[in-house]
């Protein structure tokens, strides 16, 4: 990633955090609210592929952890895993499909929330799965589907797209 890409990505991470804490935190049902941070990590994996996505997901999560009252590093771990999983799962697929993008990003967000709850439970917060997870999924799933395309647009502006495996294997072009 070039310096410009890093600057753009930092700007997008900052913007996503501002939207999360100023707007989305107010949309609350049973204590749960939409999650733009995991959505951003999933979008980074979708656009940048597993490697770039995981790096962006990690730093997005780390920045989010600075503002959260939960264990430091947890969102970074979940963010990089979500981005890596989404990047790997969609690496051979056509990326122009909007429904596919919405599906991949929503699935990534849901998987991230489940992973987050499991890790919280492992760290001793038993209620994370039995109490907090269900409302979090009920709110975050439709919200992720709604926010997927705007977040994807932002991430496409900042994260360089993944080089398709075929093009990477034949840098001179497939025709040669």
């Amino acid at each position, binding site marked *: 990633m070039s310096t410009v890409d890093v600057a753009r990505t930092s700007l997008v991470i900052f913007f996503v955090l501002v939207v999360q804490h100023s707007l989305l935190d107010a949309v609350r049902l049973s204590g749960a609210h939409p999650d733009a941070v995991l959505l951003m990590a999933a979008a980074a994996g979708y656009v940048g592929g597993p490697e770039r996505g995981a790096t962006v997901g990690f730093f997005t999560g780390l920045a989010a952890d600075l503002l959260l009252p939960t264990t430091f590093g947890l969102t*970074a771990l979940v963010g990089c895993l979500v981005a890596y999983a989404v990047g790997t799962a969609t690496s051979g697929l056509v990326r122009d499909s909007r429904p596919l993008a919405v599906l991949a990003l929503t699935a990534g967000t849901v998987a991230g929330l489940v992973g987050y709850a499991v890790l919280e439970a492992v760290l001793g917060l038993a209620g994370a799965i039995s109490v907090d997870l269900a409302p979090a999924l009920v709110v975050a799933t439709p919200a992720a589907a709604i926010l997927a395309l705007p977040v994807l647009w932002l991430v496409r502006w900042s994260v360089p797209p993944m080089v398709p495996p075929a093009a990477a294997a034949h840098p001179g072009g497939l025709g040669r």
Partner: protein
Amino acid sequence: MARSRRSRRSRRPRLTIVLLVLASITIITLDYRGDLRGTISGLRRVAHDAFSPVQNAVGDVVHPIGSFLAGAVHAGSIEQQNAKLRAENARLRRQSLAAGAQAGTLHTLQQLESLPWAAAVPSLSSIRTVAAEVVALNSSDFADTVQLDVGRNLGVDVGMPVVAGNGLVGRVIDAWSSGCTVRLVTDPGSSVGVRYGQPPGYALVDGSGVGRALAVHYIAPGTALTKGEILTTSGLQDALFPPDVPLARITSYSSTPSSTEESVTAEPLADLAALQYVDVMLWEPGT
């Protein structure tokens, strides 16, 4: 040659993710063990100090949008509330309350100014307090917290108890120059040592999540309890809260012949669902 380049390229994402996962696990472990607590809380303070002004400015602009979205999410319950409010409104008109909502706020603030229960307890009446307003609710789906508009500038620090008119609200877990985060007593990570009955018995009250009853542990089966009995903080040596702060009211208790403890639930005395103004007690554990 091409195959080995391809294989190296396909191994690179795996190496990256392994490194990132290891880095995350290291950070989590250090935070969990408390080895990096000072550094992390310093970083969080700097981040909050830098982020809060932007968050507040943007929040002022987008608050109506947030309220609209929040309203859309609660459309069903808002309709019911509307009906109730219309009836309430008619009643209020009949009574011709001159002061209206401002009187309610004034009453809340007056309660905070001279906490009725604090005045009766000598050990509490000497503790200075700072009045604060709740400016944001929990920022994580997995933690029950609120953000206040007072911070280190006014002497607020990590570990200080937060109370409302009726009793204990929670404890400051993070503080920066102009704000702080409070873990509510209903948070699953919250544990408060309490005292009940006469002669006094001691128990532990754990949070069970937003809107759920508090779980009271370590009360022996068959202990004489009464519904509505008030649990106050125990203030035992090295306690996280000063003694005699009212916390909760017992709502149910039961036990079976084979149980090792009484199954007791309680509800917080403070109305945590409608927190607006609170007091931070300038008291630190161990003082």
